[in-house]
């Protein structure tokens, strides 16, 4: 036949590649939207140019037993309760003041602050390092309102974002979370093992005209949530009125959670 085995294999291999290449490239091209339904916005979603939260730690500190915000958030979002620091998944929690504000800590700090707790969660930074490092854009900053979102369909579980976050806000699902969810709510998905999750400023509640679960649950009025770019918003009024601090401001992440101490 005049062709040796090696050349035959090479030619047939390339042929197969060429024939299938067309269909493979379809995977990589963007498909037309099969949008049969016209998008509609309900009358009452909460919108903002830049969502931000102000936490009045003075009101929070006295309530040592209270964790209504944590319960509300973790219940609303089917967050599992692992009960150990290795596997734990948490979107919002009470951290010691010393750990949350390491730079502010000193030996002669006010007594009440030494033993204080600070409510911490994702800061939805203006310049988020987690977004910068994500290789699949599974986490991104929404242009419309500044919320740093998560797409649990796309996350490959590389945990690079967990490394990049200076605040420890992100949790990874080391195992299947479902057995550890106290009461699964049907109106919000659970996540699967192998993806990273964090606070999303309750964007699904904002779309329905509801305040974030933690803000609504706080009976001591310690949590304020509003539009930073609206000069007349509650958060702007508070920031003008009171001295506020943010976590690790020197890193340039520009966190949008402010604390009144």
């Amino acid at each position, binding site marked *: 036949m005049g062709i040796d085995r090696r050349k035959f294999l090479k030619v047939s291999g390339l042929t197969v590649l060429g024939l299938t290449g067309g269909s493979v490239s379809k995977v990589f091209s963007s498909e037309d939207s099969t949008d049969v339904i016209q998008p509609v916005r309900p009358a009452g979603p909460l919108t903002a140019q830049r969502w931000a939260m102000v936490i009045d730690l003075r009101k929070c500190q006295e309530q040592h037993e209270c964790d209504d915000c944590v319960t509300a958030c973790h219940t609303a979002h089917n967050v599992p309760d692992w009960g150990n620091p290795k596997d734990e998944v948490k979107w919002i929690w009470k951290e010691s003041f010393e750990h949350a504000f390491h730079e502010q800590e000193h030996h002669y700090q006010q007594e009440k602050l030494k033993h204080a707790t600070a409510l911490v969660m994702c800061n939805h930074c203006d310049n988020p390092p987690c977004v910068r490092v*994500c290789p699949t854009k599974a986490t991104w900053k929404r242009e419309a309102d500044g919320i740093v979102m998560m797409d649990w369909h796309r996350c490959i579980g590389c945990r690079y974002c967990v490394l990049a976050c200076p605040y420890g806000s992100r949790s990874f699902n080391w195992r299947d979370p479902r057995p550890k969810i106290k009461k699964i709510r049907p109106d919000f998905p659970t996540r699967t093992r192998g993806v990273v999750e964090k606070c999303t400023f309750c964007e699904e509640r904002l779309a329905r005209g509801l305040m974030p679960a933690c803000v609504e649950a706080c009976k001591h009025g310690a949590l304020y949530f509003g539009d930073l770019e609206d000069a007349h918003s509650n958060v702007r009024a508070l920031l003008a009125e009171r001295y506020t601090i943010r976590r690790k401001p020197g890193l340039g992440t520009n966190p949008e959670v402010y604390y009144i101490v």
Partner: protein
Amino acid sequence: MLERAFVGDKKYYAWVISLMAVIGIATLFYLKQFSEGLGVTGLGRDVTWGFYIAQFTFLVGVAASAVMVVLPYYLHNYKAFGKITILGEFLAVSAVTMCMTFIFVDMGQPFRIINVFLHPSPNSMMFWDTVSLGGYLVLNVIISHVTLGAEKQGIAPPKWIKPIIILSIPWAVSIHTVTAFLYAGLGARPFWMTAILAPRFLASAFAAGPALLILFCLILRKVTRFDAGREPVQTLGKIVTYAMVVNVFFVLMEVFTAVYSDIPEHLEHFKFMFLGLEGNHLMVPWMWTSSILAVLSLVLLLNPNWRRKEPILIAACIAVFLSLWIDKGMALVVTGFIPSVLGEVPTYVPTLTELMISLGVYALGALLVTVLYKIALSVRGQWVSSRVIEKQTGSVKVGS
């Protein structure tokens, strides 16, 4: 040429089959991890990257070290390296494959890795790392295939391979630089956020890789007919020496910056490694061993009279390799998390599952190196002596 991998003597088959057995056992452990999740490892909310990624980081360096034989031979016509460039390139292929496998086993959703290519994110160093590693693998496969194929036919390789080989030189530097960038750009982790991280990675790569190559050359001289010769081994020894000197110098620079500035967020990590921190002393014996081995290796290598003696060179290479493996493959990644961003001191110990899977990946790499070296040396007719073939087949064959 691939058919050479399937023919060999009893020792070859025994070695290959035992490696495959290890890979098989490791696969069972991986199936457990795949079904239960990464919770079966020692990783946790605080120490999120551990043994797997540390091995990846170390092996990228070994892969990059092929440039240390390619550069002198192709750019500077250093003829002595002519016989061993293929060994360096095949080692690079094996190391990059191990890197990719270690990343695969570390992913929470490994079958979604294609998302990195479906949704390219140039802002992410991890995206560039996949491009870089993938490209380097393709480059080395093409280069080794073409040059070995030409050698088999007894002709010079085609001219178009030369620019591709030259490209592999900066590309080798790039794979380890971009891996360093994964760590060095994170403001959240002050232990890694140092400009010297990429140079340090390269220096340790150019010490550990050629050290391994020296050991391979000497092993091949013992078990096959291939003799690299005295000069290439000695030159590689000089390369290891200089690279190790630079590496130790860089480490001392890091130590100085942390200790003299006395800034806790830098110093605490070094305290954890060398003295222990808040009751966690797990890294201390490893780091001191690594440091002692590094000094020992320099003592053996810096004196040319000692370096010229092969038993001493072997001991020095083993010391270099182990010292750098501990430094990159055990200390570097884990220490970045201890203390954590919230100032806590977590504990990380890899589990049996984690170690078995890692062993399987290393066995895969060893299998690749074995098979590829077998092919290369069989093509050259230098795998076994013809006497052995005569005994086995009852006939005389040229080559094997």
